[in-house]
């Protein structure tokens, strides 16, 4: 995927920038406003995950096309501590930051496709896609 845009994530104000960028591309792809809001919410969750656990990283945005449908691909990448047990962090309610633990499982629920690649000490890359209806 050739990224259309990149937003560096270094602090909580970058979370707001990242979701605005996502909404912009969702609008460009002709997503209905509800889906654009759903995507912006998922971006917010993965961006906050970067701020909380890795402290800095990047979110890349791209467009995808499959069988006549347009999709918005979001890649959230960091070089933070990585995730030891991906199964555990994807359980709703699990959290090490004393939050609700809805972040990553919530983002997965909001998107059509969701993948995490991570190894302890090697950072985390989340790739998620929403397809236009």
């Amino acid at each position, binding site marked *: 995927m050739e990224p259309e845009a990149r937003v560096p994530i270094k602090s909580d104000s970058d*979370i707001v920038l990242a979701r605005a960028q996502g909404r912009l591309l969702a609008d460009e792809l002709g997503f209905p406003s*509800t889906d654009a809001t759903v995507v*912006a*919410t998922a971006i917010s969750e993965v961006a906050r995950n970067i701020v909380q656990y890795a402290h800095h990283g990047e979110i890349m945005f791209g467009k995808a096309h499959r069988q006549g449908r347009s999709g918005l691909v979001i890649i959230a990448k960091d070089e933070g501590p990585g995730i030891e047990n991906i199964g555990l962090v994807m359980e709703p309610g699990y959290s090490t930051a004393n*939050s609700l633990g*809805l972040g990553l499982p*919530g983002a997965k*629920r909001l998107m059509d496709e969701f993948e995490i690649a991570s190894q302890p000490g090697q950072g985390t890359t989340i790739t998620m896609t929403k397809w236009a209806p």
Partner: protein
Amino acid sequence: MRVPILRQAKYLIASIQSALSDHELLQLRDDLMEQTGRYRARGVVVDVTALDVMDSFAARTLRSIGHLLNLRGADTVIVGIQPDVAISMVQLGLTLEGVPTALDLEEGLAYLDAQMG
């Protein structure tokens, strides 16, 4: 940007003007805590009409605002959750856990008036 808080009789009205960062949301919580005491407010309306995204952090912070102000003796009502935001919240499984909501500012003030008896 700090969220403006207006005083109207025994109520405070916090009117969010744009998307907020986590820090700005926590600032709002602290400002409301402080002003509820200073002005002896009995009710607080938080107007989120301008929020285009309600993620788990925002929902948690609004919930804690409601619970904290309740402990300080003020009823709190969240107003103006937009339809798209409501749909995203339901998909994400977010609730405001007992913090009352109303359609808009007018309904929110009517709710508070009814609580005051």
